[in-house]
């Protein structure tokens, strides 16, 4: 390319292979690389504290889960109100496999080696994917809201069954061993924070790449086709029922990986981490981030997780001026979150991802306005 690659404003791709690439211009590729480098440098920032690490780490873990929800809801168009339960399946799979199989059979003591964790993440993902496919099965017959109810039912059954299974400590905390990384046991928040930041970041990048690849393949196109017009999809040789089941399985896989990650991060699994409220938080993250876009799954969790402590402080402030008999604080978080979701649904149904798109376009065309 003879022209200056940095200010390239359109795409001049000369063959179909180039046309498959993800990022259109060189400057886009360059800014992505810079962004990733910056993300890897975050732990060295002077402002990083334990609680900030926790916030970042949870954002990364939730991002993996929300990517999965986005495949189900954003791409295949099936609302899932039970996504946290799939995450729970992954977490409990990781916890029980480790406790009942790995520790007695492989003789791990205080910690499990890193390779084992790397192996267990996809295994937990596959178990959650099976659960996802199973819950998605009614999509051969049911549509839209009916299917949403099936996912809600799964959420409720999950919470109830865990609560009544002594093997799962009836929802109380199950201990998960710490991770041993090249001879060093990662324990204590000052080590766990940065370790899971990097681990989570790498998992997010790998999962996002897989996500992106999937979407430009025939499988990704089939998801969108089923969402847009399942009659026409059927005529294209796409089995709509099977495609929805696949979406639920993929969504389950992402949730399961996130759940296993959370289990190792917290060092314990407790049923409250996978409640209906978390499922709804995930939906909020997906909607506010932007359904049907990868960028949306990345922005949504950041936005909501960082909004949370801020709303808390706001509640404190409001409570200060209100008489103490009125419990503003209790109502504040759900109502602020609710209002934000509604505002987004009305004014920006494409979510924050659309703002991101507009911003990108603006810089691409700069210095020209149009």
């Amino acid at each position, binding site marked *: 390319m003879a022209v200056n690659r940095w200010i390239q404003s359109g795409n001049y791709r000369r063959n179909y292979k180039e046309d498959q690439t993800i990022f259109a211009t060189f400057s886009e590729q360059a800014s992505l690389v810079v962004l990733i480098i910056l993300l890897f440098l975050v732990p060295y920032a002077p402002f990083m504290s334990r609680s900030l690490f926790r916030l970042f780490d949870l954002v990364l873990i939730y991002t993996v889960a929300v990517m999965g929800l986005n495949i189900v809801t954003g791409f295949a168009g099936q609302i899932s109100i039970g996504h946290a339960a799939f995450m729970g399946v992954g977490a409990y799979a990781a916890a029980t496999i480790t406790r009942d199989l790995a520790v007695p059979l492989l003789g791990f003591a205080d910690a499990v080696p890193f390779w084992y964790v790397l192996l267990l993440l996809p295994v937990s993902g596959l178990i959650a994917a099976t659960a996802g496919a199973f819950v998605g099965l009614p999509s051969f017959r049911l549509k839209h809201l009916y299917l949403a109810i099936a996912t809600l039912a799964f959420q409720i059954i999950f919470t109830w069954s865990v*609560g009544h299974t002594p093997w799962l400590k009836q929802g*109380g905390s199950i*201990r998960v061993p710490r991770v041993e990384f090249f001879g060093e046991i990662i324990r204590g928040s000052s080590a766990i924070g940065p370790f899971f930041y990097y681990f989570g970041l790498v998992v997010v990048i790998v999962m996002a790449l897989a996500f992106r690849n999937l979407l430009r393949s025939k499988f990704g196109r089939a998801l969108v086709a089923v969402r847009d017009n399942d009659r026409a999809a059927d005529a294209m040789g796409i089995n709509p029922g099977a495609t929805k089941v696949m979406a639920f399985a993929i969504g389950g896989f992402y949730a399961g990986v996130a759940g296993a990650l959370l289990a190792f991060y917290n060092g314990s699994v407790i049923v409250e981490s996978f409640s209906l409220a978390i499922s709804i938080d995930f939906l909020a993250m997906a909607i506010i981030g932007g359904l049907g876009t990868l960028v949306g799954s990345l922005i949504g969790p950041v936005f909501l997780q960082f909004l949370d402590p801020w709303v*808390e402080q706001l509640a404190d402030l409001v409570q200060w001026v209100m008489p103490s008999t009125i419990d503003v*604080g209790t109502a504040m978080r759900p109502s602020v979150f609710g209002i934000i979701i509604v505002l987004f649904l009305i004014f920006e149904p494409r979510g924050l991802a659309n703002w991101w798109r507009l911003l990108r376009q603006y810089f691409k065309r700069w210095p020209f306005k149009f």
Partner: protein
Amino acid sequence: MKLYIRLFFSLVVFALLGLGLAQQEIVFGWSGAVTGPTSDAGRFVLQAIDDYCRYANEEQLIPGYTVNCITRDDQYNNDNTLRNFEAYLDEGMVAFIGYSTGGTLQLKVNALEEEIPVIGSSLHIGVIDPPDNDFMFLPISSYSEQVLALLEWIADNYQGEGAPKVAIISHPSAFGRAPVEDARNAAELLGVEIVEVQETGEGLDYTAMLQRWSAAGVQYVIGQNVQSPIAAMLNAAQALGLKDSMTFMGAHYTGGETLTNLAGDAAEGFLWATSYYLESEGTPGMVLQREIGERYGRSEETITDTNYTTGLLQAAIYVEVARRAAAAGEVSSQSIYEALMSMNGVNAFDSGFGVGPVSFGEGDRVGVDAMRLIQVQDGEWQPITEPYNSRTFPQVHPLN
């Protein structure tokens, strides 16, 4: 150049000053529900922690040190509890006070790794059961022990034929399920029959439940729950005329002023197991409770609430161990832990808030071991036993 040197030196001086000040400050962290589920109870605990720390500073209970109690809302959300815990670590916390059952259970591994002692408001026996229990403590006897004491009371006072029949109404959570297994084992030892364990939060049809139990011949109902479902059940029982054929009782979080306020007459005869004194008793500890509450302008509702006592006891334990640690040397999480573990025998701490001394040590992670049964008589809570321990609990649930 000179300017830079001066700047540098003043910075060093400030840093040293800051360090000096920091050494004089002892940071305790509390995280609990000020908003969200159970916040009606959590708010009283929070107020008590704040008040007692202020009181400790004003009275200079720890000579040469000030106590800084950081209290933050976690909305009964475990993630927030963990986040607060880690934030407090950044702020130099030496000991932590927890609240919810889930959050405290999940904190066990963190407490162990950070070597920070944790006292919770949750009396779940799993908090102090191994593994990872090294830094975990309960302020008073566990739900399990309370429920077992109630079962023993049933076995001792039952005069009918055959085995007494008991139903348990438990909260649908780890909190509610905590004592169920121990209760089943103890019931077997005591010759008491547990007919059914019903899990319920809000909104169950209590009439149907009670009629079913009545038909099954249930004579005693033990609650491991919070006050509102218990009050609803008591009202239903009164409406059905079952108050004569069934005796209702419950563990720590079922009782107190909240229950009598919610249930009114229907609470008459309710039997409650707890380790705290009642404000109305006017014991020395309760006089102090009123004094502290009034000093900081708390409402009558706050001052008479058991959850306020809970917070006072938790803060008082930490202030006392910090005082001992300070007297022996420096205050750190390590010295606090050591002071806690040696708080027994002659060193046991009589806080005045609980019905017995606070003691911790090897094999003893429960502060106030003793408890009493308290009954609603003519609308007032009246103790009907002296402080004692459950006799079956050590058999059913041996502690390490």
